[in-house]
């Protein structure tokens, strides 16, 4: 797939020159003049780099190489751009959020805390509880339904399978704010429940279901058919085959599906703003009252004109990304473990 990477030494030498010379020129300009950085980068460095690479390419491959060099420079640029953005995001989380982290930050709530309260007091304990509660409720709803959907597609194989897959796909495109709005309409407007962890869990379940169903489907498909045939040959019904043989055989994959589903929703803010509201207290009853969550906490503290509040926002963002990272790592570790066993 990569025949364009052959490298004779003359090529390497020209490439090195082509990279080093524009960089040196720009560095010199940066130090000696006060041309603004954006201009330096876009107007001076980029064209210089393109020209230098073009010359290097022309020298080694003739005119054919020029177009290629443009692509290569830009492709590397795009990759660098992504790396820079990622490093900036993660880096800012650590640099600005680490200060807020402490044991009490993780366990206390915000009942007596105002935005100007210093960092020694208060925390996101109530938000963590809220997130856990909401995610738990969402899993209780979406995991059985998601697995059942996958079972319908791979085991029952009814005539409606293409339609089911279509609807699951369509559901994965529902914006999170719409999911929150929908649950709000049903739940609050009909007076059934107020903003609550339960309502938030329902909204999250809508967002989780497609991920769980799709991943579970892939995992069930991997279970070898001779296991099913073997079970049937022993006098098993279809139902027992699925419940006692196929799903246990796909156990690790299904757990991975659930973890990925949770990781997908755990940072969603809009649905909770609408369906779960906010609360400074630690709430344990899923039906009773509005409840905080980590994304909601961040949302409420972001734009406050108090530096401590903002630091708290960064801190909770850091906690959130750590949670997401743990989930993805868990999924990888479990998935790599006993596949299909």
């Amino acid at each position, binding site marked *: 797939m990569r025949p364009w990477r052959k490298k004779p030494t003359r090529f390497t030498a020209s490439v090195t020159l082509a990279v080093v010379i524009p960089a040196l020129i720009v560095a010199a300009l940066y130090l000696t003049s006060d041309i603004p950085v954006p201009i330096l980068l876009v107007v001076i460095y980029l064209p210089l780099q393109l020209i230098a690479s073009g010359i290097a390419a022309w020298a080694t491959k003739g005119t054919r190489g020029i177009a290629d060099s443009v692509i290569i420079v830009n492709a590397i640029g795009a990759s660098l751009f992504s790396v820079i953005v990622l490093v900036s995001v993660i880096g800012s989380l650590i640099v600005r959020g680490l200060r807020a982290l402490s044991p009490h930050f993780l366990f206390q709530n915000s009942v007596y805390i105002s935005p100007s309260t210093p960092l020694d007091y208060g925390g996101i304990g109530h938000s963590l509880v809220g997130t856990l509660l909401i995610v738990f409720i969402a899993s209780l709803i979406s995991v059985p339904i998601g697995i059942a959907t996958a079972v319908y597609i791979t085991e029952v194989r009814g005539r409606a399978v293409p339609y089911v897959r279509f609807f699951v796909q369509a559901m994965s495109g529902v914006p999170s704010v719409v999911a929150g709005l929908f649950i709000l309409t049903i739940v609050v407007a009909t007076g059934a429940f107020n903003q609550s962890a339960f309502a938030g869990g329902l909204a999250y379940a809508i967002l989780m279901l497609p991920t769980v169903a799709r991943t579970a489907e892939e995992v069930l498909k991997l279970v070898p058919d*001779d*296991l099913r045939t*073997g079970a049937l*040959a*022993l*006098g*098993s019904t279809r139902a*027992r085959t699925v419940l006692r043989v196929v799903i246990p*055989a796909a156990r690790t994959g299904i757990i991975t599906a659930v973890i990925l589903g949770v990781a997908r929703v755990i940072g969603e803010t809009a649905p909770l703003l609408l369906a779960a509201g906010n609360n400074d207290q630690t709430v344990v009853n899923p039906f009773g009252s509005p409840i905080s969550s980590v994304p909601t906490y961040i949302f409420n503290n972001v734009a406050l004109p108090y530096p401590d509040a903002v630091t708290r926002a960064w801190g909770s963002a850091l906690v959130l990304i750590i949670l997401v990272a743990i989930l993805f790592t868990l999924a990888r570790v479990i998935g790599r473990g006993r596949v299909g066993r």
Partner: protein
Amino acid sequence: MSTAEFEDVMDLDIEGVEASTVHPVGPAEMEARDVSVWFGQRKVLEGVNIVFPKKTVTALIGPSGCGKSTFIRTLNRLHELIPGAALAGSVLYEGKDIYDAAVDPVSIRLQIGMVFQKPNPFPSMTIRGNVLSGLKLSGMKRDNHDDIVEETLTAAGLWNEVKDRLGNAAGDLSGGQQQRLVIARALAVQPHVLLMDEPCSALDPASTLKIEETIRELSKEVTIIIVTHNMQQAVRVSDYTAFFLAEEGTPGHVVEQGATTEIFGNPQEQRTLDYVNGRFG
């Protein structure tokens, strides 16, 4: 066979099967009458008539692709699970047609067990769990699970090798051991007939011999029908043999059947003679 047992066979309760407490129920007689098989529009078997006497081993031989595996799957109603499958004729078990509308295919498979070419123990269960899995999956109730595990693994010739590690994962066993485990699993639900579809073709010679020994022992209790590519195996193991053939473009059919000694020693048909002498297939 007593009336009670006969009624048991044809009218099994979905919830569970009460096994006889006296003695494992003996082997049964099966017969295929004029069985023709289709996959969609394509006819793959034509007019198969074979009798399988009690407590015997019958080998089904023939070149690949002539429908032996398809045929054997009609004997325990696994064939119909394939989309587009169709069948004509009847398959008699103890004189009654298993394709009768009143018969529950799930329960029939308790009476007529099957072992496949590729060993397929359940990976999520232990060795002991696998042996007992048939009971769990079919809802059959039997007492003394420990005895069952020991008896079936002994009958399958595997007990001594695994008796100290029944709690290990089934996937840790070698191919030959897995296949014997699968045989023990099939035996645990006390079938009267055991179908075997090329059970040794994926195994090494040592395991093959072990399983052939097992087959000879088992046939004292259970009627065995075995599909095999290996003619020496057929000679070693079977009492009766049926030779299947599918000539170009025509569905498979039985060319000749009879006592194994006759089929191999003194075949009546030229095609049989050619096949057993290795001239084709």
